[in-house]
């Protein structure tokens, strides 16, 4: 199995390169030629690949000429489309970082291109591989919760711009926290309910990192689904930068017959480091990225969880697009295409 990682713009590229490098039976190559927009000091290109012990291709064409069975697209959000279309043109299955794109039009074009070429388009939503989410899904599927009335979700992290500046550049990222963090929980609910979002209300501000970036850094998004469930998602970059963890993802579901809580990243040993003068956290939970990559390359594991497909990525993108419209107008907005 030969896998190429296209672009190292996304902060997840490092984890993918390392995981693929260590997966038995997998050969990995990286290519990152479009680095002109990287901020000074960001390690990209050949140096990045070599730093992770991975072979490097100077151009994307070289990477495809190598004959990959699958590619992973880790470019800036607004630059996913050309790479996914390139994969479709080479008839190679593709896993695209989230969000699928920054505009619904781009997302639709990507889904259409992959469908026309007969290649699989998957979207990188690792949290659906969390055992905590699997437990939620089992409880809902078995009817233990009854009808789910409301969901409160929070996907908070620190603003990722120190590693990669483009995350808060609206041109490249499509926005800020709302674009970055709404889709993970939206994807879980897309998988959980198989229901369509019909209406979105969102409010944002940039009181966090004010003066440092212009993109929104805080957001609350309320989504009403056609099964009548209401979900409110905190997508804010509200996790302190100096905290030992990057952030986390939590969700509370209130059902008619049970209330459930999950935390995808709470399995940690907590302590305090005298050496570093700060809290110490030792995560011991399942590596969600690894589980996602295995499912993308080899199909669902024993729990049956598959990677999100392009259509699913497009549905979550439509929610984000409606959220931006709502944040601009201050009123609930109908979700297009449903």
């Amino acid at each position: 199995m030969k896998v190429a990682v296209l672009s190292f713009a996304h902060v997840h590229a490092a984890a993918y390169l390392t995981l693929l490098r260590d997966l038995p039976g997998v050969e990995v190559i990286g290519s990152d030629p479009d680095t002109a927009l990287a901020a000074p000091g960001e390690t990209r290109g050949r140096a990045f690949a070599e730093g992770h012990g991975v072979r490097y291709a100077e151009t994307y064409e070289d990477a495809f000429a190598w004959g990959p069975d699958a590619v992973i697209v880790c470019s800036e959000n607004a630059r996913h489309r050309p790479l996914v279309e390139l994969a479709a043109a080479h008839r190679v299955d593709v896993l695209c970082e989230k969000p699928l794109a920054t505009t619904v039009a781009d997302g639709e074009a990507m889904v259409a291109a992959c469908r026309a070429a007969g290649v699989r388009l998957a979207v990188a939503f690792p949290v659906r591989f969390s055992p905590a989410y699997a437990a939620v899904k089992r409880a809902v599927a078995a009817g233990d919760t009854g009808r789910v009335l409301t969901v409160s979700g929070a996907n908070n992290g620190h603003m990722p711009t120190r590693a990669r500046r483009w995350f808060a550049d609206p041109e490249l990222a499509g926005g800020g926290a709302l674009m970055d963090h709404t889709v993970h929980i939206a994807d879980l609910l897309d998988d959980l309910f198989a229901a369509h979002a019909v209406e979105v209300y969102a409010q944002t501000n940039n009181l966090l990192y004010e003066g440092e970036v212009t993109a929104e850094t805080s957001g609350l998004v309320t989504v009403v689904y056609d099964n009548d469930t209401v979900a409110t998602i905190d997508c804010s970059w509200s996790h302190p930068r100096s905290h030992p963890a990057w952030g986390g993802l939590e969700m509370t579901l209130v059902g008619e017959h049970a209330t459930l809580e999950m935390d995808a990243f709470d399995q940690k040993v907590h302590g305090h480091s005298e050496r570093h003068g700060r809290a110490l956290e030792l995560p011991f939970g399942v590596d969600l990225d690894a589980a996602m990559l295995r499912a993308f390359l080899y199909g669902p594991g024993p729990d049956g969880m598959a990677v999100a497909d392009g259509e699913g990525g497009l549905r979550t993108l439509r929610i984000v697009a409606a959220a931006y419209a709502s944040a601009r107008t201050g009123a609930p907005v109908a979700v297009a295409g449903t």
Partner: protein
Amino acid sequence: MPPLHIGLLGAGGIARAHLPGWLELGARVGVHTQDGSAEKLAAEYAARGHDVTAVPTLPELLADCRAVDICTPTPTHKDLALAAIAAGRHVVCEKPLALTVADAEDIAAAADAAGVRLHPAHVVRYFPAYAAMRDAVVRAELGAVAVLRFTRGGARPQWAPWFGDPAQSGGVIMDLMVHDIDIARWVAGDVVRVHARTRGVEHATGAPAGVVTATAVLTHASGAVSHVSGLWGLPDQRFRTTFRIAGADGLLCHDSTAVPGFRITAQGERAANEGIPSSPMTESPYLSELREFAASWDDPAVRPRVSARDGIEAVRIARAAVESSRTGRAVELTTAPAAPPGPAPAPAAANVEPTR
């Protein structure tokens, strides 16, 4: 200092939370209800040597007290408060102050005209974790506050049927979430836009009653946003409140069930779900609240951390959330709140003196 003689109206759950506080403050308490429960409550306390007596009529109660503490179902607040104010008594009134903004404003205007104090009993401001969090925000410990989350949930109240009738209690938003709506405004300032949704069984008819839950997003004038969620849940839903306050310079989180200080880990059988939250590790927040209210009657320099206007604004925001939930639209609170009938308006949180 005049003797502290309190006229307690009601003998239900919240009256039972307030009564020990009044007694701790050295008060003599007369209790009046219309269903005979005052006699039972008074007898219970008198048997333990406390100066608590049942008073058969409202005029008798009003004739012989310094202040009235209204712990009755919400729809009765206005008439009882106006009667107490007409008798020249200070008024402590359980939250929500009233079911409508107009009623809340009428009560406050009457108190102002009569020169008596009106204290909406938003007791969460006296819960030590909330007070500590708000003090930290006022000290600018978190920098500009950006995103606030509040949750509050427990078993659906079944001890009095009026809770299950939204026409009387206002439902989960007006009765339960009004606590955190008040805290959100206390911490992040006035609210300009509200969006809310309610799900589940609003009218409690069955036994046990169905679950009802609501979610509200408040937009503050500062630009900060608050998520407030409330749950009247299943019979085994443990009472729990949480907050997470994120600012540019830091983060504060609290989970009431995570830090009890003391817990029973086994007792042979499962304990019944508690209704009124209590913490054996700190002073009763009800006592702290009543002490601060009573102190302000003797010393004009004492300004309780919750004002009449705060009570009105909590009703205004909660009402907007109910309206949003009903119509599906976001509700703008664009008009600056009317000049408060009470003393000076509370300034935005960032400019307020610490609570203690």
